[in-house]
């Protein structure tokens, strides 16, 4: 049976063995369990996502990046906290808002920036762009752009994990808007019916594009949708990285132990538009500003300094390293070659191109 190569990102030990006590907080428990260096690592991932995406916006404005660009700014705590519970044999599927999950899984930001620039050195050779980052060496199966669709593929990989007895868990990210379509319900039914090891993480950022949740969903508490399938579910604060980590750990353990899937609803908020072209007429500046004042990255940064996990100077130095890495990714992407025209032939479309061409050679 096929085994996938493992992830190379810094692995953070599972938080599941934690027991809450009256006095402890997610922060104190995580600090006890992980140690200071790992807390800083979680911060590093969040800030790397933030700076990478701010650079993406800049490059989009300068027309280095085309197409759709959906930024994760504001939602970093959910992706980083949730993914920190995964091991190398675990799998990730996500939607078009995929930059954060890719970086949290440890994908190489040079290759990610190159993908955005449409370069051959990109994670998908420039064939996918912003919405389709993938890296099979890290079991990161990609971002998918048909809302709700990838939940079924995730359930399929979970079925493979179950049949191959890999002990792997599949984590799949999607938005609140994705929970109204049939594919969501089909995937929940299949997963619960067959006790598939899937952790469904709904990033409830209160909007599907510009449509508020009150307008798009008959049930506003998304996690309750799992009850139709007798599925375990939880609603969590998606803006606190350590809360996310602790609670999702429980879901991952549950799925891994063979008890079945879990639906996690992480309450979060995106600070930027739905995509780079969004003028955001559907929400007020004040609303956005209010959420921005509770920026999950900056709050965690402050917590680390206040608790003495790291000094302000050390964090500043870390930020500077991140900035330099992001700059380097732009240079790498800029200097990389574009993909060749072989992608326009059958060999770009099929793993096994056949003697009979399907592509008209005159058009190539």
């Amino acid at each position: 049976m096929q085994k996938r190569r493992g992830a190379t990102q810094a692995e953070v030990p599972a938080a599941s063995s934690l027991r809450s006590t009256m006095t402890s907080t997610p922060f104190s428990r995580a600090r006890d369990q992980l140690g200071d260096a790992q807390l800083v690592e979680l911060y590093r991932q969040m800030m790397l996502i933030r700076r990478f995406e701010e650079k993406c916006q800049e490059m989009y404005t300068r027309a280095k990046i085309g197409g759709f660009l959906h930024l994760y700014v504001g939602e970093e705590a959910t992706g980083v906290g949730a993914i920190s519970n995964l091991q190398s044999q675990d799998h990730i599927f996500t939607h078009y808002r995929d930059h954060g999950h890719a970086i949290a899984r440890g994908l190489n930001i040079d290759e990610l920036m190159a993908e955005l620039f449409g370069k051959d050195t990109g994670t998908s050779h420039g064939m996918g762009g912003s919405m389709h980052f993938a890296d099979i060496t890290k079991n990161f199966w990609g971002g998918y752009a048909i809302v709700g669709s990838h939940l079924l593929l995730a359930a399929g990989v979970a079925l493979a994990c179950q049949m191959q007895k890999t002990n792997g868990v599949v984590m799949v990210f999607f938005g609140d808007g994705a929970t109204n379509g049939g594919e969501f319900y089909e995937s929940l039914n299949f997963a619960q019916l067959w006790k598939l090891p899937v952790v469904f993480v709904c990033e409830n950022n209160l909007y599907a594009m510009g449509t508020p949740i009150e307008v798009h969903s008959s049930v506003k508490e998304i996690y309750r949708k799992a009850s139709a399938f007798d599925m375990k579910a939880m609603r969590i604060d998606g803006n606190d990285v350590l809360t996310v980590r602790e609670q999702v750990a429980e879901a991952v353990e549950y799925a891994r132990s063979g008890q079945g899937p879990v639906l996690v609803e992480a309450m979060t908020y995106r600070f930027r538009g739905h995509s780079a072209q969004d003028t955001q007429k559907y929400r007020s500046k004040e609303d956005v500003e209010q959420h921005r004042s509770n920026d999950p990255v900056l709050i965690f940064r402050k917590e680390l300094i206040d608790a003495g996990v790291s000094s302000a100077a050390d964090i500043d130095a870390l930020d500077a390293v991140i900035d330099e890495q992001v700059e380097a990714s732009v240079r790498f992407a800029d200097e990389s070659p574009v993909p060749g025209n072989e992608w326009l032939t059958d060999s770009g479309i099929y793993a096994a191109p056949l003697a009979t061409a399907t592509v008209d050679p005159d058009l190539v």
Partner: protein
Amino acid sequence: MPVLTVREALQQALHEAMADERTFIIGEDIGHYGSTYGVTAGFLEKYGPERIRDAPIAEAGIVGLAVGAAMAGMRPIAEIMSVNFSLLAFDMIINHAAKIYSMFGGKFSVPLVMRTTNGWTQLSATHSQTFDSMFAHIPGLKVVAPATPADMKGLFRAAMADPDPVIFIEHTLMYGIKGEVPDGDYIVPIGKSVLAREGRHITVVTYSRMVHLSLQAADILAKEGIEVEIVDLRTLRPLDMSIALESFKKTNRAVVVTEDWQSYGTSAEIATRLYEQGFDYLDAPIQRVNFREVPMPYAKNLEQQVVVTTDRIVAAIKKVLNRS
């Protein structure tokens, strides 16, 4: 060589496929019910529920889970009871199975086989359609529609060995058709057409069940001294026109017979290729025989006028021959 029905040939191919530990079958009523068309009858008892997965009525889910499992190293067979129901899985087929290889830069593929059936018998408008051209329209898919028991087995084996998604189109009215089938490992490559009958006056280009009707038409015409050559395409994507063109260059006349609607259907593509690549050899306009372009009526007298019959094929051939 043993003579088998299409059903038996497929059963043999499926059992051979199940020898691979990675293979499982997922579909509606494939196990407990005993299989809609009898192809997987007895499989549940032999292989167990882990590998013969009776699925809920959720076509997107059936194909979607199979796509995911295929990506992760399994070799699933997804069965969609009737091609009419595949419409509910088109997102999985077209946006996912067909795209994943190229969209992610060739880093992983989807070795999925999706079996499904064309067919009609007073089933009315929603249960009598064929969507061959919709599948064959899509870069990234491979589409086969075999006609004989031997090709059923051989192409199924090829489909299972292929790293790309293959749509395997069967026909409810063909399961009882008999023919010789080689024992053991027998593989017919995807993307290769074949001569089904030799003749020198006119070329019929066709596939799937229409091969059999065209053969009947040829028998009738043979009594009148008309020798019909029949090309069985077998694969619709990639489309191998080499044998059809060779034949056309000899006969200079062609009829295209397909069991779908004419407008934008598979016969449009086939005829266009003959025109584009065989124009200099053309002695008469190409005729097409297809479904009449209406939603399928239930009433038998009307249904008979919509479907392709041997008589209609004979008439089309005569029409082309009389022009020159």
